[in-house]
């Protein structure tokens, strides 16, 4: 009987996890997942591999274990089969739940409190993305290392065995491979020892030194952004942010509910649960249980690094901090159960209020996240099938909406099976909500003139993506009369734009194309005066070794003001004001010339610049 209870104690949280978040287990990839899956796609040597694993990416983050190695190795072994990735996420979280229950039991002395804590944590809707979107595995794995390190600290404090201390160190150091949030672990260890085991406090101090070094090295390698959503604001806004995250920890994230409720219901529920928790802490503190404040400390310490992110508040930022309040709630439930009918009723009522707020949001967002990923799967696998049928043609997608673009196109999943030439139909920008901070939709859209030209040469297959199955509509699409003037934007690397380029250009190298000393192209002319011609591309270091490189542009025979690319400006963006007389013309003849060329030993060609995009704006 005892064995059965013990087994049930361990198994109940994982079972509940599966029941609540099953859509997460069966989800596919989406959005950032594709960037990580393709992180090692172009590696040619060990140096490239090291950069892929340790180079700062996405807001300067360096998460080799939870993002780089996890995705690169997973993709190499399983390809685009998402299930092994999802199983890894869930198994890691099962370990987290076991650790959370075990730590809760050790801290409170109550097995029931530990179990309740794990269940309350699972009910929080901040679990949805960590368990439903593979890119957020970093949170799950970071939680694992934090909890494991803390577990070993507790064992060290209980037994005095030095080996636990060193196991704690190992888990702590490994945690830096999962997420930078790991750096707060020393504060957690210090808070615990100060409040409960002062004798061990000094043993936590070396941990701070490691976190300090990590911060210094990370800041040197990838300084935090000073502007935009990820800029840090050390102002009073941090308190407001903390307030938001508190409400998301004791109620549903974003205070969202799929149920139609009067406006006062959720704030009232959040107030009730908060009052219950704080009363319990006050009562425990009044009776000398200083450890009660550790649970609040856990919540605040794990939130501290994201509190300055005033303009980027995300639901999964409370995923790990919420465990502190879950421990407190579990403890309160266990204590109230033994304290008599009144306390028992009150605690159960509060837990029910919490569950009624959090669970509908968790279930609805879990399903929502799953359904998006399945739409993305239909798109990506449909394009793969279309490419197999039409290997020599570019694929043009018609009917892509906001959800599909930001989750299934932006990170170019098609390159994972070697397909670069996938575009959106002209006019798609009208169906897609703009998010300039995430990406530029224009770079994905094939201009109308290029489409007309490509269709005439049978270089494009057009698919309607509105349904669950991609539908080949090339014949209809080709029959629709469309504007076939040269576009205002020419992607020089694209094979479809080749008809606009003069004979001087070298063949496309996939995502770029070299020009010799001089090259010409046709491009659309602006409708009104005051526009500029923008050139963007790359200029290799070899080309800039002898100093600035002069770039001369002429339009319809008139030479524009010259510009130069200076050493260090490898990714160049040049702007040339256009003469007013070109406005209203159907097209312009553009000639680009550089002041010198290079001829590397490995390439006998005269190389000028790498393009890039030429655009009239």
């Amino acid at each position, binding site marked *: 009987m005892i064995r059965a209870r013990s087994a049930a104690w361990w198994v109940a949280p994982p079972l509940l996890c599966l029941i609540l978040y099953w859509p997460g287990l069966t989800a596919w990839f989406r959005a950032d997942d594709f960037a990580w899956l393709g992180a090692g796609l172009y590696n040619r040597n060990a140096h490239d591999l090291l950069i892929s694993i340790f180079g700062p990416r996405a807001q300067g983050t360096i998460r080799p274990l939870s993002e780089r190695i996890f995705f690169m190795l997973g993709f190499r072994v399983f390809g685009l089969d998402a299930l092994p990735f999802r199983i890894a996420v869930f198994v890691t979280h*099962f370990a987290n739940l076991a650790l959370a229950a075990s730590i809760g039991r050790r801290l409170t002395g109550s097995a029931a409190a530990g179990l309740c804590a794990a269940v309350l944590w699972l009910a929080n809707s901040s679990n949805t993305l960590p368990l439903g979107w593979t890119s957020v595995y970093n949170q799950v794995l970071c939680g694992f290392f934090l909890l494991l390190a803390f577990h070993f600290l507790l064992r060290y404090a209980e037994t005095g065995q030095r080996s636990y201390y060193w196991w704690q160190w190992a888990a702590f150091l490994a945690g830096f491979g999962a997420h930078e949030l790991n750096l707060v672990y020393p504060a957690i260890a210090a808070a615990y020892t100060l409040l409960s085991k002062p004798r061990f406090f000094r043993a936590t101090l070396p941990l701070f030194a490691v976190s300090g070094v990590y911060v210094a090295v990370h800041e040197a390698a990838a300084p935090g952004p000073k502007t935009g959503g990820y800029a840090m604001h050390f102002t009073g806004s941090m308190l407001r942010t903390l307030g938001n995250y508190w409400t998301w920890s004791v109620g549903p994230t974003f205070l969202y509910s799929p149920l139609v409720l009067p406006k006062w219901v959720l704030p009232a529920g959040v107030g009730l649960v908060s009052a219950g928790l704080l009363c319990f802490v006050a009562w425990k503190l009044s009776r000398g249980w200083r450890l009660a404040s550790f649970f609040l400390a856990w919540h605040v310490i794990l939130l501290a690094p994201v509190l300055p992110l005033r303009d980027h508040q995300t639901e999964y930022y409370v995923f790990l901090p919420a465990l502190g309040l879950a421990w407190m709630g579990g403890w309160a439930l266990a204590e109230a159960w033994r304290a008599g009918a009144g306390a028992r009723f009150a605690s159960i009522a509060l837990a029910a209020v919490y569950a009624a707020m959090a669970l509908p949001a968790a279930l609805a967002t879990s399903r929502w996240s799953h359904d998006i990923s399945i739409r993305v799967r239909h798109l990506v696998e449909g394009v793969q099938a279309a490419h197999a049928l039409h290997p020599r043609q570019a694929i043009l997608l*018609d009917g892509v909406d906001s959800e599909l673009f930001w989750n299934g196109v932006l990170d170019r999943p098609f390159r994972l099976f070697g397909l670069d030439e996938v575009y959106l139909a002209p006019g798609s920008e009208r169906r897609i909500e703009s998010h300039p901070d995430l990406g530029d939709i224009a770079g994905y859209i094939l201009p109308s003139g290029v489409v007309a030209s490509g269709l005439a040469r049978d270089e494009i297959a057009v698919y309607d993506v509105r349904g669950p199955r991609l539908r080949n509509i090339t014949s*209809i699409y080709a029959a*629709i009369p469309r504007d076939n003037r040269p576009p205002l934007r020419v992607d020089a690397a694209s094979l479809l734009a080749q008809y606009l380029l003069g004979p001087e250009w070298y063949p496309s190298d996939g995502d770029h194309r070299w020009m010799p000393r001089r090259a010409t192209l046709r491009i659309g002319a602006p409708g009104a005066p005051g526009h500029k011609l923008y050139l963007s591309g790359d200029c290799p270091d070899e080309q800039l070794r002898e100093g600035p490189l002069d770039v001369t542009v002429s339009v319809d025979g008139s030479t524009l003001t010259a510009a130069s690319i200076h050493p260090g400006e490898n990714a160049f963006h040049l702007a040339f004001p256009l003469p007013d007389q070109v406005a209203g013309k159907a097209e312009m003849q553009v000639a680009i010339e550089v002041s010198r060329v290079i001829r590397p030993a490995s390439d006998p060609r005269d190389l000028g610049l790498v393009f890039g995009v030429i655009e009239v704006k």
Partner: protein
Amino acid sequence: MTHIYRVRRGAAARLVLPVLTALLLLVPAACKRKKVKVATDEETPRMMSVLNVADPKADPQLVKGFHGVEASAWRWTEKQFTVALRPPFGSAQKGGRLSLKLTVPQPTIDRLKSISLSAAVDGSSLPPETYTTPGDYMYVRDVPANLLGGDSVRVDFQLDKAMPPSGADIRELGIIVFSIGLESK
């Protein structure tokens, strides 16, 4: 103050149980998961002469200016909207008739008082029609045979005014359209 919970087995051993259970629970998911059908629909569709704008097959011919399908039957338009239609058999000799089934809703008349609709077939204008009361209408115009010679024609519709985006609806709203078609005379 901390309780020391005494246990007989080590932490690693106790982690094994939930992890093994988890693996056992996940095996069925791995075995039973459904294969997603990824084949594409390669059946060559024909351009249509008559479009029910709610029909997903009509989507590629709704070139611009249409909002999403509502009530599985109709769409709001913007101030300008465009379709591509296949000239029906014989229309290149006898000429054709363009028809558009529409509704002018009460809020449009309340706000705009009247609304005029005109059309152009491959750039050649057809006479406008003005609606001053809400209701269901059919905009019908003859199209000369010389405009219907190709595989498809572009029909541009234009309203003289539309309801601009507002707090209640962020879309520009013109009229409600059910179908647009070309038939031979």
